[in-house]
C-alpha cells in the first residue's frame, strides 16, 4: 500500500463527490476559456470582415479633390476609382438610403480584385445585398443617386457655388452579383454600390480623373508606394498649375481652388529663392463698389500686391486712370471699398474698408495686367458684365454702359491696387490668402523644384495603409474577451465556489477518515498534500473537459451576440473562432484557481484536533473574530461610500470597493450569527429547521455568499439600466445629419431661402461642423482611430445645454472650456463620458494625438447623444480642418408636438442634401440599448451564476440531509411526518436563500447609491422582484427535491446500528 494506491482508492471510492468537483473545475475552465474565445472570435470576425471586404486592397491613394487617372499606371497592381458618399433613392417608392458608399469602377476593379464578373456599364448599378433590401429594389429598377459635386473652389469662399452642391444621376439596378467591397471597417452590412467609372466621371465633370487608387502591396510597407507617388505625381494632381505669362515674363502659380494656402505659398517662395528667382505674391478680390464721395464704380477687380502699382502706405490705394476719372478722385481722397465676405457663420456679409488714394496710375504695364485675377467660373469667361453668373447676389441695375465697356476692353484688369498685407487682412480666408504667386523670371527648373519641394500628403494626396489600419481597428474598441471575463466573473466565481464547496463536502464527509489517518500518524501537511494531489488529479481531467465546455460556452455566447444580444454588436456576422492559446490559458487559469479554491478549503482543516475529526466535529469560528472583521469592513465601506458621494473617489471604484466590503461585512456578521447560540428556542419544525442552518455554518455561509454575490450583481446592474428619456438630448427633440454639406446657415431667413426651406414657425437649427471619421460610440465595434469631430457654433457654447459628468476645471458651463487658450498647443475637446472611457480609452484631462495634432479632453458629457464624436470649438475646427466645409450635423429645437410633421417637411425640403432627421431620444435609446444589452448579458450570466449558486445550495442541502439521515430517521421514528421533515429542510433553505437575496440586494442598493445619484439610473422593481422571486422559487424547488431524494431512501437503514 502506497500513497498513490490510497490516492487511487480515494478517487474511485468517493467518485460521486469527485465527479462533482471535476464538473466544477470544468465549468470554471469552460467559462473562463469561453470568455477568452469570445474575445478572440469578435476580433477575428472583425478582422475577417475587413479582409474580405478589402479584397486585394492593401493601400489606398486618395485625395479630397480629383487627380489624373493615369497616375495609377505608375504602380504595379493598381485600380483607379472614384469613391464618394451619397444618397440613393428608389423613384417610385421614394425610399431613400443615406450615407451610401458609391464606387465608380470599371473592368480594372475586377482584374484588381481577381474576381469573376462584369463591371456595370452605361446606366447600370450594382447594389450590395443590404442596400437592395433597404431600398426594396430589384434588377431593372430605376434609382437616383445624389452625390456631392466636386468643387475646386471652396464652397465657403465668395466664389463657391453654395446652392449647387450636389449632382443627381439616374441609374438602373442590375442583377449581377456584388462581392461585398468596402474601404470602411464596419461590422454591419455593406451599404454600397458600384457604378460605371466613365459615367460617374462625366456626371461629375471629372473626365479622366479619379479620387482613389487601390493598391495591392502584398503586405509590404507603404514606403515604396509613397516614393513612387512622389516620383510620378504632377502639380496638376494637386490642383496646381504653373502658367507662363509671356508678356509679364513670369510664371504664375495658381490653384484650381483659386486660393493658395500659406503652406504652399511658403514652399513656392522658398523654392524661388533657392533658384535665385523672385516671387511676387498676389491677392485679387472683387469689390462690389469703389466709392469716392457720392460716386461709385460697381463690381471691380482689386489686386493686393507687395510692390507697385500697389502703394506702400498701409491705408493707401492706387486707382487706375479709368477708375480715378470715373470717381473724379485725386490723391489724398478717401476711397471706400465695399465687398462681400462669406464668413464662417454661414452668411454672406457686405463689409467696407476705407483707404486714402495714394496715386493714380495709367492703364499700362503692370497696371494693365488682366492676369492677376484667377479664373472664376461664371465671371471671367463672360463676354459682358450682364452675362456674369456669380454665386453671390449681383445688382445688374448698377452696371452702366461704361462699366460694360471697361469689361469689354480690359476684362479683369484691376481698377485698384492695395498693399498685400491690407488685402490679406480684408479678404484672406482659411483656405488661403493669395490667389497666385508670380515667379520672375520664368524658369523651367522652377516647376521641377517646386514639385520636388511640395509634400503631396500636405496637399491632400495621401497614401493610406487601409489594410493595416483596418486590421488595427479590428482589435476592437472593446475587448470582448475582457468584457466577457467580467460578465462571466460571477459565473466563474460561482463555479469555483462550487468546486470548493463540493471539495469541502467531500472533505467533511471524510472527517472521520482524516481523524483516523491523523491518529495513525499522518501529519496534517501530508494529508493536505494528499488532498491537494487528489484535487490536481480531478482538476486535470476537469480542465480537459472544460476546454470542450469553453468551446460550447464560447459558441453559445457568439450565438447570443448574433441573436439575443444583437443590440450590443449590431451585426450577425460574428462567428466562433477557436484559439488553442485561449483554450490553454483558460484551462491553465481554471485549473490553478480551482486548486487554489481546494487549497483554501483544506487550510481550514489544520487546527481541528484528531479527536474532533474522529468525532466528525467541525471547528467553529469564533464569533468575535467575524464580528471584528464585519465591523472593520463595514466602516471601510461607509468611508468609501462617503468618498464616492463627495466625488472624492471614482464612481466605479467606489461601487466595487464599497460593494465588496459591504458584502464581506454582511457575511461576517451572518457568520458570527450562525456560529453563535443567540437563537430563538426551538418551538416547532420551522425553528428546528432554521436551527439546522447552524449545523455546518461554513457551508451555510458559502451558500449565502454564492447567492448574495450573484444577487448583488443582478440588482446593481439593473439599477444602472438606462431609460429612454434623458437629459442627454440637451432639450433638442430632433437631430439631423446631411450627406452633402449645407453651406448656408439654415437658422437664418436668407439661409433658409437659399436652401429652399419653407417658412417654419418655431424651428431653430443649431448647425455643427462635422469632420467625418470613425464612430466613437458603442455602436461601432472597431477601434475608432480617427473619431468624428463636431464643432458647435460659438453661440451654442454659451447656452450651457447638456449635463456634464465631469470637467477638468470647476465651472458652471464646461462648454466654454473649448474656447480656452491653453499655453501649450493642445486643442481642448469634449467627449461623452462613455465614449471617452470605453471607446477612446481616455481619462479626463488626458491627451491624444490625431493627425499630428494634440487634443486634451477637458470635459465629459453625461449620457449624451454625442457618443459618436469629439467636440471642439468652431474656431479650432476651422483652423485644423480648413478643407472641411459647411454644416452636416444639426440639432433642431422644435415644438415636440410637431416633431414628426416637421421631420417630414424638412427631410423633403432638404432631400437633395441627403438630410436625415432622427428623434434625439431615439438616438439616445440606441446607445442605451447597447448599454442595456451589455447589462442584460452581464445580468444573464450573473443569473447563471445564481443558478449555480442555487445548485450549490441544493447540493449542500442534499448533503446535509444525507448526513442527517439518522437524525431524520429518528424523527420519523418518533412521529414526524415527511411533511414535517420537508418543512424543516425548507425552512433552512429559505433562510439561506433569503439571507443571500437580502444581503445581496441591500449591499447592492447601498453600493450603487453614489453612482446612481450622480449619473442617474433606476431600479426596475417589478422585473427585479420577479427575478428574485424566481430564484427563491427555484431554491425552494431544489430544497424540496433534496428532501424528497433523502426521504425516498429507506430511513430504517439509517437507524440500524449493525
Amino acid at each position, binding site marked *: 500500500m502506497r500513497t498513490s494506491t490510497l490516492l487511487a482508492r480515494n478517487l474511485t471510492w468517493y467518485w460521486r463527490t469527485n465527479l462533482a468537483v471535476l464538473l466544477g473545475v470544468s465549468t470554471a475552465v469552460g467559462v473562463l476559456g469561453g470568455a477568452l474565445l469570445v474575445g478572440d472570435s469578435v476580433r477575428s470576425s472583425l478582422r475577417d470582415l475587413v479582409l474580405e471586404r478589402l479584397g486585394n486592397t492593401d493601400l489606398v491613394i486618395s485625395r479630397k479633390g480629383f487627380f489624373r487617372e493615369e497616375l495609377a499606371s505608375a504602380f504595379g497592381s493598381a485600380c483607379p476609382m472614384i469613391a464618394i458618399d451619397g444618397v440613393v433613392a428608389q423613384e417610385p417608392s421614394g425610399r431613400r438610403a443615406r450615407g451610401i458608399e458609391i464606387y465608380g469602377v470599371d473592368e480594372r476593379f475586377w482584374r484588381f480584385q481577381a474576381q469573376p464578373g462584369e463591371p456595370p456599364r452605361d446606366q447600370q448599378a450594382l447594389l450590395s445585398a443590404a442596400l437592395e433590401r433597404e431600398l426594396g429594389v430589384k434588377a431593372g429598377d430605376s434609382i437616383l443617386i445624389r452625390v456631392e459635386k466636386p468643387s475646386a473652389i471652396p464652397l465657403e469662399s465668395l466664389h463657391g457655388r453654395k446652392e449647387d452642391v450636389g449632382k443627381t444621376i439616374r441609374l438602373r439596378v442590375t442583377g449581377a452579383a456584388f462581392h461585398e467591397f468596402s474601404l470602411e471597417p464596419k461590422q454591419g452590412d455593406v451599404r454600397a454600390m458600384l457604378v460605371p467609372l466613365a459615367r460617374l466621371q462625366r456626371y461629375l465633370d471629372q473626365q479622366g480623373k479619379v479620387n482613389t487608387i487601390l493598391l495591392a502591396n502584398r503586405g509590404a510597407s507603404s514606403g515604396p508606394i509613397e516614393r513612387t507617388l512622389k516620383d510620378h505625381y504632377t502639380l496638376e494632381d494637386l490642383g496646381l498649375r504653373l502658367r507662363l505669362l509671356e508678356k509679364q515674363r513670369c510664371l504664375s502659380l495658381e490653384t484650381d481652388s483659386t486660393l493658395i494656402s500659406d503652406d504652399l505659398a511658403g514652399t513656392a517662395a522658398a523654392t524661388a529663392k533657392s533658384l535665385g528667382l523672385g516671387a511676387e505674391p498676389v491677392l485679387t478680390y472683387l469689390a462690389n463698389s469703389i466709392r469716392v464721395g457720392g460716386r461709385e464704380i460697381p463690381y471691380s477687380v482689386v489686386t493686393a500686391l507687395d510692390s507697385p502699382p500697389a502703394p506702400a502706405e498701409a491705408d493707401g490705394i492706387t486707382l487706375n486712370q479709368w477708375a480715378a476719372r470715373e470717381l473724379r478722385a485725386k490723391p489724398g481722397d478717401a476711397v471706400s471699398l465695399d465687398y462681400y465676405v462669406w464668413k464662417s457663420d454661414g452668411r454672406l456679409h457686405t463689409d467696407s474698408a476705407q483707404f486714402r488714394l495714394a496715386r493714380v496710375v495709367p492703364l499700362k504695364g503692370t497696371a494693365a495686367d488682366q492676369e492677376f485675377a484667377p479664373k472664376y467660373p461664371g465671371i471671367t469667361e463672360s463676354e459682358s458684365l450682364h452675362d456674369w453668373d456669380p454665386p453671390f447676389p449681383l445688382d445688374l441695375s448698377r452696371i452702366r454702359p461704361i462699366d460694360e465697356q471697361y469689361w469689354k476692353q480690359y476684362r479683369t484688369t484691376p481698377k485698384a491696387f492695395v498693399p498685400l498685407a491690407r488685402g490679406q487682412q480684408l479678404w484672406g480666408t482659411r483656405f488661403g490668402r493669395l490667389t497666385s504667386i508670380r515667379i520672375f523670371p520664368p524658369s523651367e527648373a522652377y516647376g521641377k523644384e517646386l514639385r520636388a519641394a511640395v509634400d503631396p500628403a500636405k496637399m491632400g494626396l495621401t497614401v493610406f495603409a487601409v489594410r493595416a489600419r483596418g486590421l488595427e481597428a479590428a482589435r476592437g474598441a472593446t475587448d470582448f474577451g475582457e468584457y466577457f471575463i467580467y460578465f462571466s466573473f460571477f459565473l466563474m466565481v460561482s463555479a469555483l465556489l462550487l468546486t470548493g464547496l463540493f471539495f469541502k463536502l467531500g472533505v467533511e464527509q471524510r472527517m472521520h477518515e482524516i481523524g483516523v489517518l491523523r491518529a495513525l500518524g499522518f501529519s496534517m501537511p501530508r494529508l493536505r498534500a494528499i488532498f491537494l494531489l487528489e484535487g490536481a488529479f480531478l482538476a486535470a481531467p476537469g480542465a480537459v473537459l472544460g476546454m470542450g465546455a469553453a468551446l460550447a460556452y464560447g459558441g453559445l455566447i457568439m450565438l447570443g451576440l448574433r441573436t439575443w444580444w444583437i443590440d450590443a454588436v449590431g451585426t450577425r456576422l460574428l462567428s466562433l473562432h477557436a484559439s488553442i492559446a485561449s483554450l490553454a490559458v483558460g484551462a491553465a487559469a481554471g485549473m490553478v484557481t480551482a486548486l487554489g479554491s481546494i487549497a483554501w478549503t483544506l487550510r481550514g482543516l489544520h487546527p481541528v484536533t484528531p479527536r474532533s475529526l474522529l468525532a466528525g466535529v467541525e471547528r467553529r469560528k469564533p464569533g468575535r473574530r467575524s464580528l471584528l472583521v464585519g465591523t472593520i469592513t463595514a466602516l471601510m465601506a461607509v468611508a468609501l461610500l462617503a468618498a464616492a458621494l463627495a466625488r472624492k473617489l471614482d464612481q466605479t471604484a467606489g461601487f466595487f470597493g464599497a460593494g465588496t466590503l459591504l458584502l464581506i461585512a454582511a457575511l461576517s456578521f451572518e457568520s458570527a450569527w450562525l456560529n453563535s447560540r443567540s437563537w430563538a428556542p426551538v*418551538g416547532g419544525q420551522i425553528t428546528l429547521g432554521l*436551527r439546522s442552518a447552524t449545523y455546518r455554518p461554513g457551508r451555510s455561509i458559502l451558500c449565502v455568499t454564492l447567492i448574495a454575490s450573484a444577487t448583488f450583481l443582478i440588482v446593481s446592474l439593473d439599477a444602472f439600466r438606462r431609460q429612454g428619456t434623458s437629459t442627454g438630448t440637451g432639450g433638442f427633440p430632433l437631430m439631423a445629419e446631411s450627406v452633402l454639406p449645407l453651406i448656408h446657415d439654415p437658422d437664418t431667413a436668407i439661409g433658409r431661402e437659399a436652401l429652399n426651406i419653407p417658412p417654419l414657425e418655431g424651428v431653430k437649427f443649431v448647425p455643427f461642423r462635422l469632420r467625418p471619421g470613425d464612430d466613437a460610440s458603442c455602436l461601432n465595434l472597431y477601434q475608432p482611430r480617427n473619431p468624428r469631430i463636431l464643432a458647435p457654433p460659438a453661440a451654442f457654447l454659451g447656452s450651457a445645454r447638456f449635463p456634464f459628468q465631469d470637467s477638468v476645471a470647476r465651472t458652471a458651463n464646461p462648454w466654454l472650456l473649448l474656447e480656452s487658450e491653453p499655453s501649450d498647443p493642445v486643442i481642448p475637446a469634449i467627449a461623452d463620458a462613455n465614449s471617452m472611457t470605453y471607446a477612446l480609452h481616455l481619462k479626463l484631462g488626458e491627451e491624444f494625438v490625431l493627425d499630428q495634432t494634440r487634443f486634451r479632453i477637458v470635459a465629459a458629457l453625461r449620457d449624451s447623444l454625442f457618443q459618436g464624436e469629439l467636440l471642439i470649438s468652431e474656431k479650432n475646427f476651422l483652423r485644423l480642418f480648413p478643407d472641411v466645409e459647411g454644416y452636416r450635423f444639426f440639432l433642431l429645437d422644435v415644438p415636440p408636438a410637431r416633431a414628426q410633421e416637421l421631420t417630414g417637411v424638412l427631410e423633403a425640403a432638404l432631400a437633395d442634401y441627403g438630410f436625415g432627421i432622427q428623434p434625439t431620444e431615439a438616438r439616445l435609446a440606441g446607445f442605451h440599448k447597447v448599454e442595456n444589452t451589455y447589462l442584460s448579458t452581464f445580468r444573464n450570466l450573473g443569473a447563471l451564476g445564481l443558478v449555480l449558486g442555487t445548485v450549490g445550495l441544493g447540493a449542500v442541502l442534499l448533503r446535509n440531509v444525507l448526513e442527517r439521515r439518522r437524525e431524520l430517521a429518528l424523527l420519523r421514528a*418518533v*412521529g414526524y411526518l415527511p411533511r414535517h421533515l420537508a418543512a424543516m429542510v425548507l425552512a433552512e433553505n429559505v433562510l439561506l436563500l433569503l439571507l443571500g437575496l437580502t444581503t445581496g440586494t441591500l449591499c447592492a442598493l447601498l453600493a450603487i447609491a453614489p453612482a446612481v445619484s450622480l449619473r442617474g439610473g433606476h431600479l426596475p422593481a417589478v422585473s427585479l422582484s420577479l427575478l428574485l422571486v424566481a430564484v427563491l422559487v427555484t431554491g425552494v424547488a431544489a430544497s424540496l427535491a433534496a428532501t424528497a431524494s433523502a426521504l425516498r431512501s429507506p430511513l*430504517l437503514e439509517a437507524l440500524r446500528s449493525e
Partner: protein
Amino acid sequence: MLEVSNVSKVYPTPRGPLTVLSGISLSLKRGDAVAIMGPSGAGKSTLLYILGALEQPTAGTVTLDGRNPAQLAEKQLAAFRNQLIGFIFQDHCLLPQCSVLENVLIPTLVANDHAGYPARARELIQQVGLTDRLDHRPAELSGGEKQRVALARALIRKPLLLLCDEPTGNLDQASADVVASLLLELHQRQETILVVVTHNAELASRFPVRYELSHANLHPAGT
C-alpha cells in the same frame, strides 16, 4: 398491552426469500421489561422495528394498546409512534445543532398537545443527571451522556412502549451501567413496556425476562 401474534418477516433476496422472523408471538403488559438477545443478523433489530411500527411484518399482527399500526394511515401511524412509542438507538441520533433540552423536546414538536413538556423535559434531564448540561450541545457531551439525553427524549411523551436497540453498545462499562440503571429505573417509574435488543449479556441479565432470537424465532434465554 403489546400483543405480537405469529409475526413473520421474509426478505426477498436474489437467492430466494430470506426468512428473518418466523411465527413470533409475544404478549407484554405495562411494566414488563424484556431483553432480546441473539447473534448479529438474527433479526433482533427487525423485530424491534416491527414492534415500533417502523416496519411491517410479512405475516402476523402486532397490536399496542389494542391498536394495530398496520391498519393505520401514515399520518395516524406517525401520531401513534409519537404518542405510544419511545426509541433509543445504539447511536444516540441527537441533533447536533440543538441543545440537550431542545433535543429532549424534539418529539413534542409534532405532538398534538403541548402542555407542560418543557418542565417535564427538565425533570427527565434531572432524572438522567444532566441538569448542569441543559444548554450544552451533543458535541460537548460524552457518549454516556448523549445516551442519557436519548433516554430522556424517548420518555418525554410518556410512551407505553420503550424500544431500545443496543442502548449501551457504544458505551464503556461504567457508562453502560449508568445508562442501564437509568433505563430500568425510569421504566419502572413510568411503567412502560420495555423491550431491549442487545448483545450485552450483562445488560440482559438485569432484565427479569430474557429471550434469545435464533433460527427466526424467540426462545426463552438459556433454553
